[in-house]
């Protein structure tokens, strides 16, 4: 299914680990005269490329009251330009044996095609065209609004877990725009107009707000020549500063309950406000990444899994996750899905108890060594997946990091000690503002 939105639907179970792997070889970067950044990731094993353009704009950059406009524009980017008719973009990609798609998150909007390497020239011509020459037909805007409303119905309104996540983020980010859903609030989506989409486009879609990433069977020199030809002539825009409303005076301990009759398996989720990876300053994020793996990695070896699924059978599933790639403050999250007969209150108490024991007892050095080795190996496995690496660089570079931050990340992880992880854990669990949510069935709420 295309026009996927990542991050807002099932972020719940997204393995943090999967995105922390990277290889440092054969990555080249440079910047065009007009300010467009370019990253080339070489993989010559098969004659294919992934061509991606990432914009440093997303749902967290939307004007007040226009939630969903970044994502709506993403859909409308597949419509007409001054010289190409609606749908021609995807038709040309398909006729060339390629696949194309796009996705929106809070900090970025990205477009990509996967094609034979000798079609890269054509892909750049198409993508550069819609960066500068989008034209929106009012009737098509109206039809596409229905598509995003159906998308919201399918991915959010039909899924109590997704609705719970939405309510959760509203509390975790009461003022910061990470608290609005990427897809948008339904009432605001219904009011999104052609003018709203064009205003967002004019403001943010420009080469100096974009990153070109090409991964696959190409050389940096080939990419440079093509990029200068197609993207080089586009004029840079004057960009607004990327500042967002802040959460000041965040409550230290918020709680809420979300009931839905369609919930089959209740659980408790708790998130702590946590620092993200910053350019040149990734040490604390590295400690938190390792902490998440230690607490919530594989159930049979992680602290939460062992305590709640193995040593006792209090839970059917317990985990922790942390995603450090984010422009602004991120979250460190714990989840506990209790076994039958264990209440959510007890499940929350179980989390508290396991974390308290962990803070007292510390980290098993053997487990720490295994996790370090897993990180090392994940760099080898990551080299098998050029698209995945392209995506990692795109996320990083739209979230305030630079190429060198991605490349030094394995060293930062390697340099992290058990003491560093414990210090990060003490700070997080003692001081960070937190939200605790119960996802329950309607029956419970009525009781």
């Amino acid at each position: 299914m295309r026009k996927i939105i990542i991050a807002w639907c099932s972020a719940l179970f997204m393995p943090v680990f999967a995105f922390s792997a990277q290889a440092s070889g054969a990555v080249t970067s440079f910047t065009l005269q007009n300010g467009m950044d370019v990253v080339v990731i070489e993989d010559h094993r098969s004659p294919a490329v992934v061509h991606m353009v990432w914009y440093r704009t997303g749902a967290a950059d939307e004007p007040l009251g226009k939630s969903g406009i970044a994502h709506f524009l993403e859909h409308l980017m597949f419509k007409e330009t001054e010289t190409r008719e609606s749908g021609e973009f995807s038709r040309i990609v398909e006729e060339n044996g390629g696949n194309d798609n796009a996705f929106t998150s809070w900090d970025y909007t990205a477009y990509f095609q996967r094609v034979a390497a000798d079609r890269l020239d054509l892909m750049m011509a198409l993508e550069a065209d819609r960066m500068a020459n989008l034209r929106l037909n009012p009737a098509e805007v109206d039809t596409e609004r229905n598509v995003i409303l159906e998308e919201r119905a399918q991915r959010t309104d039909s899924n109590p877990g997704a609705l719970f996540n939405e309510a959760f983020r509203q509390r975790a980010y009461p003022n910061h725009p990470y608290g609005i859903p990427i897809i948008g609030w339904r009432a605001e989506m219904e009011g999104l107009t052609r003018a709203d989409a064009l205003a967002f486009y004019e403001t943010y879609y420009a080469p100096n707000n974009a990153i070109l990433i090409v991964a696959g069977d190409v050389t940096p020199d080939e990419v440079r020549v093509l990029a200068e030809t197609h993207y080089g002539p586009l004029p840079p825009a004057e960009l607004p500063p990327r500042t967002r409303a802040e959460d000041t005076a965040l409550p230290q301990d918020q709680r809420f309950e979300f009931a839905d009759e369609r919930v089959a398996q209740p659980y408790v989720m708790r998130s702590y406000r946590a620092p993200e990876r910053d350019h040149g300053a990734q040490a604390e994020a590295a400690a938190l990444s390792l902490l998440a793996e230690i607490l919530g990695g594989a159930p049979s070896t992680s602290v939460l899994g062992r305590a709640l699924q193995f040593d006792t059978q209090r839970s059917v599933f317990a985990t922790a996750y942390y995603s450090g790639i984010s422009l602004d403050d991120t979250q460190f999250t714990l989840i506990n899905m209790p076994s039958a007969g264990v209440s959510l209150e007890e499940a929350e108490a179980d989390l508290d108890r396991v974390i308290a024991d962990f803070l007292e007892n510390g980290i098993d050095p053997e487990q720490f060594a295994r996790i370090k080795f897993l990180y090392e190996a994940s760099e080898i496995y990551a080299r098998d997946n050029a698209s995945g690496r392209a995506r990692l660089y795109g996320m990083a570079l739209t979230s305030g990091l630079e190429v060198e931050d991605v490349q030094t990340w394995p060293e930062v992880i390697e340099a992290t000690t058990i003491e560093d992880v414990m210090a990060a854990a003490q700070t997080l669990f003692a001081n960070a503002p937190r939200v605790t949510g119960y996802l329950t069935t309607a029956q419970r709420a009525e009781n």
Partner: protein
Amino acid sequence: MMRLITQIGAIGLACLLHIAPVQAEIQIQEVTSPNGHSAWLVEDHSIPFVALDIRFEGGTNLDEEGKRGATYMMTGLLEEGAGALDAQGFAQAVQGLAAEFSFASYRDTIAISAKMLSENRDDAAALLHDALTEPRFDTDAIERVRAQIQSILASQTQDPDTIAAQTFNALAFGDHPYASPEEGTTDTIAALTREDILTAYRNAFATSRVSIGASGDITADELGVLIDRLLEGLPETGPALPDMAGFDASAGQVVIDYPTPQSVVLFGLEGIAMDDPDFFPAFVLNEIIGGGFRARLMDELRVQRGLTYGVGTSLSTADWQPMWLGQFASSNERVAEAVALVDVILRDIAENGVTEEELTRAKRYMTGAYPLRFDGNGAIASIIAGMQQSGMPIDYIANRNSYVDAVTLAEVAAVAQRLIDPDRMLTVIVGQPDGLSATR
């Protein structure tokens, strides 16, 4: 350990569009091990690991009478302790080698995927061999996995896609295993004993039914030795496989009331086997109707009218009943319009075939996209294991695009007339659709 996120596929049958991939450029070697097992290998030494995909034909179809879910549960237990190691010891050993193992059961097959670093491949293979030949099925592990499966089953009862698929299968496949959920039911899972799990285990892994694909940093000789080590101790034969399922749905529409703002629609007809002479015309036809973004259904429902976020169809080449299936979701207020439109489009295609332009476009896409499926060692190992299991010849890769290119407009029209018969279609709708009711 069971994954708590269940994969919601069309109806969980193997889908050709996912398993038939092959790559025009890769070189496959046929390897025969010293003990006579065969495997296909794509050798590539550029990254120091190997991906293996090992498939045993049979899958959850082999559940014995009254023991539905036993194979699924058994598969989930394979990584919960083997040989001298209990569940935690086994997981620690696997992590200590940074190997990745996954064990998955499907209707027709059990698939074991592994990634092993070159630096410790022998040790990793020894662990995988233990999981295959000496699984412990410890009582505490059985109870833990049983609780996880019950949790999954509870979630499935609240998932509209799963409700649609299970309803469809129950109506379509009579007494065949395809008719019932392979994960079992609350009752069958509750009743399974360790003995049942052992029976499922003994039935599942016969070396005469294995297909093996490997890709990455390994030579043919090394692979032969590795395979013999992995399969050492498994039985050669297994119990009888099921008969063909048949598709005995009397046509019509079923509506399952479910409190959701959007209805899920699942529709299906008898499909076509891969060895049928009309298979490639049908393959191209499916692409034109519901394969991609520019396909007829997507264009009419989504692009022209905004009736859905997405609609797709696929040819399922499940071993015991090929099917042609489609699925979409539309808001309760608009779903009747979408269902009616699908009917109009299918009748038009059955009667008039497709256009020359559609055929040309589909062929260009299918032949152009084909080589791109060679997407890393993991993907290749899975692809070439699947090819063997489907009985495809090793030169299929070189010829596949020519089969697609050879399809004519008249062949597509003929196969459309043969397959696309809306009067025989079974449609399951889950939701609270306005203006739609059951017709059977």
